[in-house]
């Protein structure tokens, strides 16, 4: 009896379930039809993107719309260096993305609120235009072909990157740096006063999340087998992770995972039946979520947790408005 109680207690239950899920996933290509394996590749991709988006943007309230830029860097690294072996390219692509994240962080994280959002929104567009220019004027190509990889291999690589993302974001959140990020999100000025090196923490956390976006891009390029700048720097790739993370809820660690899995499956089903309405539906879900479900699915599940401030509450504008962010429960009030 005692042993069963110990197993069902929360301490062992969660890791055991996670282990079981992992084993099921790892064995998937053995028992599932190829279609499901391919679906899971895109699920993995979106989980990686939305997890790494939420790991930085969730606690700090800096909304980045530049996911596509970092993903695209990975995609292009993969295309340019395709003679090397895949693990090497993954590391190189991830590191390039990380370096770029450092650079962007140095420039952009001094900006706040709206300015940061505008900056990141334009960034992937800039990359797209530079890449189109590069393709047309320097290499004289429109796009690039890659050697097609077996979906099963891609599946395992994506699973590996996914695990790495989950582990790193989990330990980042639990570490003192995660706490520092949280504190920066609540009040940047106060964090600086209690001795957090605000810029350093922000820039490094941002760059680390960029690594995984880039790594995912490298593997997905081999899955697509044809790429061009419009595919690699597609603005939807900036949009989806935000939708997924907010839909799942960025208040909890598992929120973005939940959001990414549900929306990818939903969008796949819609894509199969009404291929044209896919983005329309996603956009509508997104609008409804922001307006009516500010805590995401996590907020629904943990109904009692309304005391927590809604995410995105602390978008900071220049001029010391950061202190407005400590807020209580969301209430409708008549204007």
């Amino acid at each position, binding site marked *: 009896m005692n042993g069963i109680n110990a197993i069902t207690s929360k301490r062992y239950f969660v890791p055991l379930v996670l282990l079981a899920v992992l084993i099921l996933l790892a064995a998937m290509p053995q028992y599932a039809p190829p279609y499901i394996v391919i679906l899971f590749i895109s699920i993995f991709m979106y989980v990686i993107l939305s997890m790494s988006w939420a790991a930085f943007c969730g606690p700090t309230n800096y909304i980045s*719309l530049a996911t596509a830029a970092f993903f695209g860097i990975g995609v292009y690294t993969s295309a340019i260096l395709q003679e090397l072996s895949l693990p090497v390219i993954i590391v190189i692509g991830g590191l390039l993305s990380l370096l770029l994240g450092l650079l962007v962080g140095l420039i952009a994280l001094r900006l706040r609120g709206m300015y940061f959002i505008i900056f990141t929104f334009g960034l992937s*567009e800039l990359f797209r235009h530079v890449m189109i220019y590069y393709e047309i004027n320097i290499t004289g190509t429109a796009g690039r072909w890659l050697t097609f990889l077996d979906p099963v291999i891609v599946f395992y690589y994506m699973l590996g990157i996914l695990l790495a993302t989950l582990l790193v974001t989990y330990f980042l959140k639990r570490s003192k740096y995660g706490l520092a990020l949280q504190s920066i999100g609540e009040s940047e000025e106060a964090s600086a006063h209690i001795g957090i090196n605000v810029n350093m923490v922000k820039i490094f956390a941002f760059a680390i999340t960029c690594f995984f976006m880039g790594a995912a891009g490298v593997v997905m390029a081999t899955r697509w087998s044809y790429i061009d700048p419009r595919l690699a720097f597609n603005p939807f790739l900036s949009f989806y992770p935000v939708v997924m993370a907010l839909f799942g809820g960025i208040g909890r660690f598992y929120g973005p995972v939940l959001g990414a899995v549900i929306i990818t499956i939903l969008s796949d089903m819609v894509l199969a039946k009404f291929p*044209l309405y896919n983005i329309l539906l996603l*956009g509508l879900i997104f609008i409804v979520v922001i*307006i009516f479900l500010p805590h995401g699915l996590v907020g629904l599940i943990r109904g009692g947790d309304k005391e927590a401030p809604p995410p*995105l*509450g602390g978008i900071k504008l220049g001029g010391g408005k950061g202190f407005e962010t400590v*807020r209580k429960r*969301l209430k*409708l009030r008549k204007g």
Partner: protein
Amino acid sequence: MKQAADREPPSAACSMLAIKKKGRVVITAILDIVIAGLIMGGIFALIAVGLNLQYGVARVLNLAHGEFIMLGAFGAYLLYVLFGISPLISLVICAPFMFLIAFGIHRLLFQHLRMSSKSIAAFEGSSLLVAFGLSFVLQNAAALAFGSTTKAYSYLTQSVTLAGAMFAANRLVALLFSVAFCLIIYLFLAHTRIGKAIRATAQALDTAQLVGVNVYMVLGISFGLGAVLAGLAGALISMTLSISAYMGLQYIIIALIVIVLGGLGNIIGSLIGGFILGIVGSAVMYFNPGLTMASYYILFLIILLVRPTGILGR
């Protein structure tokens, strides 16, 4: 022409002639750049003034602004192709529709969000994301309704010579109209009763409410007016350039750059910023068309780093 001037034989008279010729070439090139820049800048200014009105008053940084431009452009295109109505007349037809659509969207989405947001900063963040979602919805709906191919029609394409440079008449008409619309909106804000209510709401919402301004109506009206300007800009763009359901993205980026350049919330700043960006863009286009967008972005980066409040910001 430049190369021809360089290849003149090196006799004294000829080289004098060459220098003169070269000078004239340079002057024509500069005129070309400036006038083409003003023409682009007029449209940019109109777009940015609309976006700035929405952000400055309704506090919605409307990432779907480009889609409103696209709707205006398709309105003018369809009226011209189906009924042969001149785009200049469809400006008048499109405007009220754009206003109603945007007013409705504000009522339906943003007003609720505004009421339920605890702080204005929270509202700005979530309204931006809602607008981002809206842009995808409108873009997709337009692609379904009008098809996803690029479309164009020709209207007033005869060329006009202006200070030695040749331009299509429709571009000059677009410039005149966009400047006129900017002036009209400025005078409207400065002198009419509703305009004063809009400015009061932008400055201090609570106080405006205290003196009897129906603020949610005013927020809706200014959001609607911003969309009207976008629609008008779209109709003017449709006369001069090709349009598609996906055209919004490039214009929203330009509009964002212009309003940062001029200062967030500053309408005169947007007007000036629009022309600056237009001239920079046309200068880069003259030398290397592929890098126009990159040059806008570099300008944007410099402004953000050197003077994030914009050229006319406080």
